[in-house]
């Protein structure tokens, strides 16, 4: 292959505007692609984060008092008894929030009384003895609550301090980084001591995705202060739909003093929780694909133009002995120059964009591995886009040289 680079460069420089425009497209496309894929990969990590609960087989019934005769604690125990007795139900618990909804309550725990030292933030769940079984999580150490420990709220009564709590593995580590949390005492804002009686596997509570999606404390409490409660139900695999329908029909009419606010599967909330990330990933991927497609069309267009503008020159080269593959090589190398220029500028722009995104939006810094892969990928599809015009150039007949057009 005999390629003289210098004349090629000089011809490139002479018709430079087209080449610059294509290089500019490549620059933007690379910066967008690399950063978009980086963001998408982060989102996928978020989407695929395990919930730690058996959300495929769980549903929630939201119940609210309606009339002044409504007695919450009797209605609640009646509803729970009914739900627990249904065939196909593994466990049911009262709760004051619903996991995966993003609508939960937080609390703070101290290692010393009187708010001394720094506090650890934790999500709070109020569940009864069947709480752990309903969530589908299990104890790593310690014990479950017994029914004597469960505290009952009354309407309008807003604060109860439990004597014992169960914490997730993540929260246990946060509270006691180098030791066994089991049996240790922590303090709430009012300075009252609380003993950790159990440590569970990690699961997501109601607060949702965030900095600490797995830091939760379970309080042995039955809600009621707000005149409304949730019943969380876990069914045997495959029985969810049927159980939900039966329960819904029964509960709607079983007690005229209250109403069913809504019934949802936990999958509904899981879906909703990851939807924003999933949508962002879909959006970014679509737009990136389109940008790449447009850029390839630009490369294709420029190469086609170059070939047709130089038909006579190609014919002359052929006439004086250039082989087909020399012509192809000529155009491919020329395209490679443009690509490389665009890619080099694109690296700079991609890094700058990545830096800016990390400053502006709290994203992790761009992983260089993505940049390298992006460069290679773009370079290859860029060359593929020029392949067909180069082939067409090679098929120009040498006789063109002697014809006037």
């Amino acid at each position, binding site marked *: 292959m005999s390629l003289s680079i210098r004349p090629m460069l000089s011809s490139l420089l002479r018709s430079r505007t*087209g080449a610059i425009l294509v290089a500019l497209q490549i620059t933007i496309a690379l910066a*967008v692609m690399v950063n978009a894929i980086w*963001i998408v990969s982060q989102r996928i990590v978020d989407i695929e984060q395990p919930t730690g609960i058996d959300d495929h087989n769980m549903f929630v019934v939201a119940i609210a008092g*309606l009339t002044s005769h409504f007695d919450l604690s009797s209605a609640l125990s009646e509803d729970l008894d009914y739900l627990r007795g249904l065939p196909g139900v593994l466990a049911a618990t009262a709760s004051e929030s619903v996991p995966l909804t993003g609508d939960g309550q937080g609390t703070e725990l101290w290692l010393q009384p009187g708010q001394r030292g720094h506090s650890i933030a934790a999500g709070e769940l109020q569940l009864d003895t069947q709480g752990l079984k309903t969530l589908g999580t299990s104890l790593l150490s310690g014990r479950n609550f017994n029914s004597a420990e469960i505290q009952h709220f009354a309407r309008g009564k807003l604060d109860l301090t439990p004597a014992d709590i169960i914490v997730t593995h993540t929260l246990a580590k946060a509270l006691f980084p180098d030791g066994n949390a089991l049996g240790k005492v922590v303090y709430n804002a*009012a300075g009252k001591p609380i003993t950790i009686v159990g440590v569970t596997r990690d699961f997501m509570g109601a607060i949702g995705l965030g900095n600490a999606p797995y830091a939760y404390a379970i309080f042995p409490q039955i809600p009621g202060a707000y005149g409304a409660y949730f019943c969380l139900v876990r069914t045997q695999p495959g029985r969810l739909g049927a159980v939900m329908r039966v329960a819904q029909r029964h509960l709607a009419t079983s007690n005229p003093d209250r109403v069913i*606010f809504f019934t949802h599967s936990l999958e509904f909330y899981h879906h909703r929780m990851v939807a924003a990330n999933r*949508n962002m990933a879909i959006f970014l991927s679509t737009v990136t694909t389109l940008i790449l497609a447009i850029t390839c069309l630009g490369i294709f267009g420029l190469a086609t133009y170059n070939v047709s503008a130089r038909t006579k020159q190609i014919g002359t080269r052929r006439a004086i002995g250039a082989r087909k593959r020399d012509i192809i090589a000529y155009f491919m190398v020329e395209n490679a120059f443009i690509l490389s220029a665009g890619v080099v500028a694109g690296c700079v722009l991609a890094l700058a964009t990545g830096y800016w995104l990390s400053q502006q939006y709290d994203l992790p810094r761009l992983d260089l591995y993505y940049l390298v892969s992006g460069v290679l990928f773009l370079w290859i599809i860029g060359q593929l886009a020029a392949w067909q015009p180069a082939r067409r150039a090679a098929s120009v007949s040498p006789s063109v040289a002697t014809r006037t057009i």
Partner: protein
Amino acid sequence: MISYYLRLASKSFRRTPGLTLLMICAIALGIGACIVTLTVYHAMSGNPIWWKNNVLYAVTMDSWDPAEPADPDHPALPPFQLTYRDATYLMSSDIPRHKAMMAELLGMLNGAPGQKAPVPIMTRATTADFFPMFDVPFEYGGGWDAAADQGPQPVIVLSHKYNERLFGGRDSVGQTILWNGRQFRVIGVLKDWQPTPKFYDLNEGPFAGPDDAYVPFNWTRTLQELPAGHSADWEANVPDTYSGYLASEAVWIEMWVELPTAASRDRMLSFMNSYWSAQHKAGRFQRPLNNHLTNVGDWLKLNGVVSSDTSILLRLAFAFLAVCLINTVGILLAKFLKRSSVTGLLRALGASRRQIFWQHLVEVGTIAAAGAAAGLVVGAIGLKAVQILYAAASTGDTGDSNYTSLAHFDAVGIAWALALAALSTVAAGLYPAWTVGRLPPSRYLKSQ
């Protein structure tokens, strides 16, 4: 002359239909993508009451924990809600033209003719000025007056949607209905009013469902209703009675005032400041003075209504449009330069630079117009897709979603498309048209 240029342009398109189509597609995709993200962005950050932007103010005071700011990530910000005692005191001021305090309650509606089961609804407990202050449009009847606030009188305003559902859309003013087991008289029915974002209460997220009914605020106290909306407290000892709750430092009330002049705004602020000083001496408000009257636009910004995802997407859309335009400039330039022998000939026959420039600009304009038209279609399809994608993300517990209203293709979208098309014509066409206009006429005559 324009018609002649158009004829020449159509000849040119027929000569290179593939390239022409490519350019139209590139512009259409770029404009379509921009329309989609701009519409979403506009809807998300748009000010739904822009005409009153500079007279409506959210009232905030920093009543939070002396030891720690309300939001440790933004220590300069006071909590976004007020305590009951502060809100009721500030409501006693007659400086604002309008003023309203409000909170979200859970309500049960029952007793409409033919109604079988009670319906749970989100109810806004608020004061009389809410309706005139926010220019709330009524279909039937109207709001209540200050006397009804004081009573409180059992009057209720229904949303358009629930009037449809309970009364089949008929004029229900004067009808009686049960709200949480008590008899209320329907006093007004709203038109379909869904300010998006719901600027006056952003605590449940910007796309929280609309309020379904409105009752006088004092029913909260009369019926001992706890708020179903956002509330927060910092005290170590949470009160365990309702009256204790009202007297506590828990924040759960949004307050808005309408202050038509800068002077009234200053007076309101000094009223707040003197209240702060008195309370400060009495032992409350131990954090630094941090009273604010925040207008709607700033309030939306403070609440981070535009998610970072949307602003990333917005920038992405512009990068995309840029690539599409650069692409088009490149193709146009190649196409025009390839024709330079003809252009040289036209120059020899007496076409001036300006005539050549306009001739090419008309050609570009035609492409841009076609691209814009196709872009509108692309945008409409894209918005449909967004609507489907986001419907799940914004579905509330009761199954309502505000995204359908958000992502509809309105005049704003079309205006954006047209503006973008005009802009892209200028951006994509000027340089190539100018370049061919500058070609020396003689050079290309011989080489044909």
